[in-house]
């Protein structure tokens, strides 16, 4: 089931990647090539097979509830594109 350019625009918006008209068409061609490959999966009978999320089984390991991490704000914020008074700055957030 080939994608359309409106699919490409929709997923580009979902993924928050700006895409021009020209790029949309080019990307559409490439994605359809890849999806042709992916479509091979549809013919596989997977009845009764458990999806595999992890290579190894087992359960989640838990951490004791202790506040042992004392973050160094300067180190953590040193790569910020814009900051002030210990805050990351972004274009105005409208709620």
């Amino acid at each position: 089931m080939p994608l359309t350019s409106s699919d490409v625009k929709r997923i580009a918006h979902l993924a928050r990647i700006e895409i021009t008209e020209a790029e949309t068409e080019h990307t559409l061609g490439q994605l359809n090539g890849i999806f042709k490959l992916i479509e091979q999966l549809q013919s596989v009978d997977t009845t009764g097979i458990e999806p595999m999320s992890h290579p190894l089984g087992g359960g989640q390991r838990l951490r004791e509830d202790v506040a042992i991490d004392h973050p160094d704000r300067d180190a953590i914020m040193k790569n910020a594109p814009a900051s002030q008074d210990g805050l990351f700055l972004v274009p105005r957030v409208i709620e």
Partner: protein
Amino acid sequence: MNWEVVIGLETHAQLSTQSKIFSGASTAFGAAPNTQASVIDVALPGSLPVLNKGAVERAIRFGLAIGATINRRSIFARKNYFYPDLPKGYQISQFEIPVVQGGKIAIVSPTRGEIAIQLTRAHLEEDAGKSLHEDFHGMSGIDLNRAGTPLLEIVSEPEMSSADEAVAYAKALHSLVRWIDICDGNMQEGSFRCDANVSVRRPGAPLGTRREIKNLNSFRFLQQAIEYEIKWQIETLEDGGKIQQATVLFDPDSGQTRVMRLKEDAHDYRYFPDPDLLPLELSDEWLEEVQAHMPLLQEEVSGKFMNEYDLTPYQARTLTSSRELAEYFESAARDSDSKVAQLCANWISGNLSAQLNEEDLDISQSRISAVQLRGLAERIADGTISGKMAKEVFDVMWAGEGSADEIIERKGLKQISDAGAIGKIVDTVIAANAQQVADYKAGKEKAFNSLVGQVMKASQGKANPGQVNEILKKKLG
């Protein structure tokens, strides 16, 4: 024609852990911006989550308390969306398989009496950070201290039919999460907040289109927002309009709700199991261990109070409004007779509560200990002091001046209950007030009260008023 209201609540309870759900940073409220945001909370490249046992344990406690199914295997998923206060670009939450499923909360509805509200589920997830809108040259500031704070999202079935019921449910839930010690319940700090799904329909008709009111952080706002929303939806429909599915915000200043986004712009969250986390598996041993450490629940304690101390259902409910209060009462009333227990109950819900309210303290900060209060009740019960004197003792005790016995002794407040001593005072008063005695004998009841007053005055208020009445009457013939 009537309208039927259908309300379901989604409540976010911040779990009272020391550290965050996936990082070792502190969850303490009020720190300087971004000083409690670890490399994991800021989602620096290469950081990975590790689940906090304390958060899981609190979810289990909740499940046990509401009689829910606790899934032995639950899955953490990623809910993908972009927002500047969501550092990873996804929220780790539970989607298809939550840790807690089902269960119920008992409430008292003003119209339907005692009912149970069924819960759909409760799942673990992480909180987001905060956007601060003060003006930074037209920019917003992002503080990620709250990011990664553990939340239990508790989802009810749409079973409430009025704002009153929704508030009763929210209050019951609020009191429960504090009772089992999984959430501090501080609504001002956002530790307990509700989203309300509201729709209306004609009786018997299929469910109407719902609108979701987001982020209500007080019971009053919950009440007002739902009432406004119901009124607005009914008016819209009666005017021939249609309700569009939407997410709305409540503005406390105008008392109105306004649309934040319509369903058409609803997010496509692209949930999938988080590959950084394995399935959460709970062993029978752990569940048993958590169960063994569960406190008696509110209804259980309230029933016990009625049985053991002969409290009325109302008294019992009042004294179990929080675990601290119930524990205070229990340590005051333990092993005492029913008279002392009753007095303790009355003094706690009366004078003590009033005093705490006045000074904005909670029971754990009371200046009068349970043992002190019991001492006071005992002296009232055995007639050592009158009710009026007790109030004085209470005030002095509040001021930190010792036990009831010490205060009574020091202030000479002991009641005179010796008939001989009272008789002597009565004789003196009769001798000195011939006119009033005559008036009384002539049938003037008022004169008797005046004589009682004279006796009390002469005894400096210490004479047992009951005895004064009795002896005076006898002596006047």
